[in-house]
């Protein structure tokens, strides 16, 4: 058995947390789960995954909302084809207001939906390795690694200043 395991650690301060992240990055550890009481985009350069596709989907939804609005307004004007003064029944300029509102509406709803989907948020209890202290003032790093790497990772975390380090076997590795 190769023995895939994970090590959970708890940090009480930012300096030791950053030191640990730097050390793990230098050691080539890419499979991390990092918890913090606030969103720290400043630390993204030290983390394996960056950016988010949320903005792209918001852009698409916004454009779709804009097009939908013009389609609805122009379509309804053409369905009720009342010609006034020989003019085309549709008036683009007033429809810009509707288009703007639907751009924002679809974009905003998609922003929420995309966050829920990509962050895998759903009504359920918080799953380990979450610890309620991460919602207060502590930081957590969980490293998933091969069994052979365990001692070096544990040493790295302790040297960085981890308050607690726990080794755990993954439930899938029976």
């Amino acid at each position, binding site marked *: 058995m190769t023995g895939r395991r994970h090590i959970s650690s708890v940090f009480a301060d930012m300096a030791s947390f950053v030191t640990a992240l730097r050390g793990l990055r230098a050691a080539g550890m890419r499979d991390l789960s990092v918890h913090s009481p*606030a*969103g720290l985009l400043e630390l993204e350069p030290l983390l394996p995954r960056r950016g988010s596709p949320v903005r792209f989907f918001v852009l698409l939804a916004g454009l779709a909302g804009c097009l939908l609005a013009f389609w609805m307004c122009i379509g309804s004007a053409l369905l009720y084809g009342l010609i006034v003064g020989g003019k085309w029944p549709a008036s683009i300029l007033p429809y810009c207001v509707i288009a703007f509102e639907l751009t924002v*509406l679809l974009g905003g709803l998609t922003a929420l939906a995309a966050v829920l989907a*990509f962050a895998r*948020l759903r009504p359920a209890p918080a799953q380990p390795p979450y610890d309620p202290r*991460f919602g*207060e003032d502590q930081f957590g790093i969980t490293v998933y690694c091969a069994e052979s790497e365990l001692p070096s990772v544990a040493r790295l975390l302790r040297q960085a200043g981890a308050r607690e380090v726990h080794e755990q076997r993954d439930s899938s590795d029976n």
Partner: protein
Amino acid sequence: MSELALRDYNRTVLGALLSRPSRVYWGVVALLAAGIGWGAFCWAYQICRGMGVAGISHPVGWGAYIVNFVFWIGIGHAGTLISAILYLFRVRWRSAIYRSAEAMTVFAVMTAGLFPLIHLGRVWVFWFILPYPNQRHLWPSFKSPLVWDVVAVTTYLIISIVFWYSGMIPDLAAARDAATGRRRRVYEFLALGWTGEHDQWRHYLRGYMCLAALATPLVISVHSVVSFDFAMSLLPGWHTTIFAPYFVAGAIHSGLAMVILLLIPSRRFLRLERVIRVEHLEQAALLMILTGAILAYTYLVEPFIAWYSGDIFERQFSAWRALGPYAWAYWTTIICNVIAPLFFLWKPARTRLVPLFTISLLVTAGMWLERFVIIVDSTAHDFLPNVWGHYRPTWVEVGIAIAALCWFLFWFFLFSKHLPAVAIAESKDIRLGQAAEAAL
């Protein structure tokens, strides 16, 4: 006052949330519910007896209901201003007060939304204004400012709720961890399994940024669209290009005043003085000096343009507004909205709670009167002397206006004791962001 430790944010805010509400609290909630009941009676009476029980009649067809609609939409503006615009500008003082301001926005727009329905009279046909395809293909005219208004206000309400809720998710998780029993299950459901894992944060913060970026022009657009209800008509006093910025500035002005009015008592009763500090209220007061100055400019420009345009109808209307039977409302508006906030230039007036509360109260009253002046004056005194008239609200309209205030406060009271009233995670984010930059 010493700065709070990170853990103290949880203890202070969640302590207020999870402590048992006092009898006084439930007494006030019951009183507000009774006020809502009175409003429901007034509305039912109007439905049974007809619109004649309201003071609106020829020539003033838009009276207290539309005044209240515009007033409450305006109140809803500061929430998104504080939340979205100040977020984009990285203004740090917003974190202490934006949650309450957003809640205020949602409840104010909910309140505003009632008035067009009440004003309709036959409320059961309200869906005529919604864009639905009926069998005759007679869709609402999307060229009409009233339809723009429906779309804009509905969008604003939905986006405000989404923005409010999404900002609350990390704090609901903190509440989940601190709560027990049934409350824990409710917070667990609302927190959506939030763990504060970096993958959640990186998507969440980008999504929140997008929402802020979308909500910012929305703030400007919604009250501009509300102003188009008036500016697109040809009535003297309404048909002016300055209405959109005039309405937006006024809305933010009244919203900031209402934020201060709500936060001064709630920070005391929820024991949040260490989190919502006087300097946060002071910043809102400073913003009110700016919005008051913009209003002063528009109050000056209106009569100037009436004179400079050479339009006799605008000239006579402008003089009538300042000297006619509603002159008291016009001048009180100017005193409350422009003169009163100038006291905030004096530091003690913006750092002591009594003057902060008093001036904010004056501004709120002044902004209601401003809407009254705008809406009633123009319809009461337009082009031809034979259609000039007068308007006085009846007890039904006054009853519904008071009930609307009770409705708004009812929801705010429930919010303040059942949901995190201060953004815990974002308050920490500022401190941790500085620490992270230092550590890097």
